[in-house]
């Protein structure tokens, strides 16, 4: 596998605060890689170092195999889409998109053609004469994307590109960005704090916390096998149980089953724990049931079960239930 970019022991220290802590990271070529993590974990800082806006305190960054640690942003040839879009408010859409080409002294005729191409790719060719302020958020976002793509960058960097859009548009743009990535074959790095977005869009996902990488891999590899409790929590594993050997395991809410009569259908092997219903939240398709219970080690735990609405038993808070924990879905976790 070739690498579009590579972080080598990179740290970023602001004063006495380490925002990025000694990360090694390979960005595969021609794929969409997401940086996923909670607010303040160092995603933007990593991206800004990659783009050349911040010099790493330690370590090196290479782009397409060339050490670029000290290369200024204007000579990295990367396309970046900022969270605020950062369109030039005093230029038309076409001039925004053509800016990078102008800086590269592309002749006017070529430039016009490539601007149109890029705008067509995002479906906005008809707005080329407008000023950015006249556009909706989603349109501005597409212009920013077209502007970044127009320079035919080595790598496309997107910092939370969807977070300023409303929910419907966000879903729509996920597919749009995937399509553009596929059509252009560009390597893309996308920063997000939304795990659904990362799972849906990534070829490769990188989970970060406190400036460190927690886990990296394809969504198919990472999701069923979170490496530690942080990753599990971040991906929506709500239930944490200590097993007989004292190790921590986790299981997703949709894998728990509840029954009212004692120990009935124990279809699968695994533990059956007694508990008391604390809360029932009906959500149409499914029902979320919170149960106070104790795990096999005897520790008190609160478990969350996500049941399909049509097959869920009729429960009210205070009811005694049995919680079935199928062994096949239990994921062992490494310590943090």
């Amino acid at each position, binding site marked *: 596998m070739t690498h579009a970019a590579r972080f080598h022991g990179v740290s970023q220290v602001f004063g006495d605060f380490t925002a990025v802590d000694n990360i090694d990271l390979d960005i595969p070529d021609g794929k969409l890689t997401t940086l996923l993590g909670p607010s303040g974990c160092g995603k933007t800082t990593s991206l800004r170092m990659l783009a050349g806006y911040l010099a790493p305190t330690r370590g090196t960054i290479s782009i397409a195999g060339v050490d670029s640690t000290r290369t200024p942003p*204007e000579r*990295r040839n990367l*396309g*970046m889409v*900022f969270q605020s879009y*950062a369109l030039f*408010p005093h230029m038309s859409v076409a001039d925004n998109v053509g*800016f*990078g080409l102008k800086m590269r002294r592309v002749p006017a005729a070529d430039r016009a053609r490539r601007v149109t191409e890029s705008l067509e790719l995002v479906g906005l060719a008809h707005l080329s004469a407008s000023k950015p302020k006249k556009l909706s958020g989603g349109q501005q976002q597409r212009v920013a994307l077209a*502007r970044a793509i127009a320079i035919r960058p080595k790598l496309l960097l997107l910092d939370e590109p969807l977070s300023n859009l409303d929910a419907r548009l966000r879903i729509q743009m996920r597919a749009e960005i995937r399509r553009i990535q596929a059509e252009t074959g560009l390597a893309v790095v996308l920063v997000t704090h939304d795990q659904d977005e990362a799972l849906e869009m990534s070829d490769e996902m990188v989970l970060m916390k406190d400036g460190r990488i927690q886990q990296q891999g394809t969504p198919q590899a990472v999701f069923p096998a979170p490496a530690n409790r942080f990753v599990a929590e971040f991906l929506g594993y709500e239930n944490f149980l200590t097993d007989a050997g004292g190790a921590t395991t986790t299981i997703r809410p949709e894998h728990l089953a509840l029954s009212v009569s004692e120990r009935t259908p124990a279809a699968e092997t695994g533990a059956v724990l007694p508990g008391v219903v604390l809360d029932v939240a009906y959500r149409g398709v499914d029902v979320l049931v919170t149960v106070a219970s104790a795990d096999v080690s005897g520790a008190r735990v609160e478990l969350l079960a996500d049941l399909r609405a049509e097959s869920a038993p009729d429960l009210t808070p205070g009811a005694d239930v049995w919680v079935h924990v199928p062994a096949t879905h239990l994921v062992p976790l490494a310590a943090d």
Partner: protein
Amino acid sequence: MRTRHPIAASLAVGGYVVMLVPILFVVVTAFTAGSTLRFPPDGFSLRWFEAALTYEPFTSSLLSSLMLAAISAVLALALGVPVALAVHRGALPGRSVVEGLFLSPLIVPELVVGLALYQQLMVGFGLDNFQTLLLGHTVLMFPYAVRVTGASLALIDPAVEDAARGLGASPGRTFLSVTLPLLRPGLFSAALLSFITSFNNVPLSLLLQSRDFRTLPVVMLDYVQQNYDPIVAAISVLILAGTVLVAVIAERTVGFARVFGGINR
């Protein structure tokens, strides 16, 4: 305006009377046919305007004032905008100290600055009065140049400048093609404010005057002290007209209250 605050309203009316009525009287008096500042005026004529426009000390000092205001405004911007850039964009250690220094001419009384420059630079150091005036006015405009352009710089999303760099523009190119155009309203406001402030300045211009170079306000002060005729009313009306013109230009471009009131409605 009808009001539910009768006390506040009567105080406000009083305030407007004090602010504006004397100016109205100047306007009325300027059109008198008589030769004193008597009220009510004796008839109507434009003779005092003609007199004002042909009175050499007024015309030459008007040119001096305009020139001084223009040059010092340009100088203040040329020196002050880089400071604003350094304070808001650069890696400047002690940026608040630097900004404070450049705003400090605003808190020292102008008369004191004038005295200091007169004593130390003109008498002590032997600079001529035009050079000293230029330096003094430039320093007095620094706060506007630094603060007003700084405020509009703070409104520009730094990501926009980053974006230009990422697209291949060098720092210089980024400044010229992105920062500067976005800064234009701020620069324009700062220039107008500086120009007006310099043009109207009395304390510095008074202390630093010489027979060869005097500004219009200083000549007017002198004239009023010696003579009591409506020629000053006429020149005042001309200044008023010029000031209204500046206000209209400000309103048409950046917005009057934004330029002069520091008010963002």
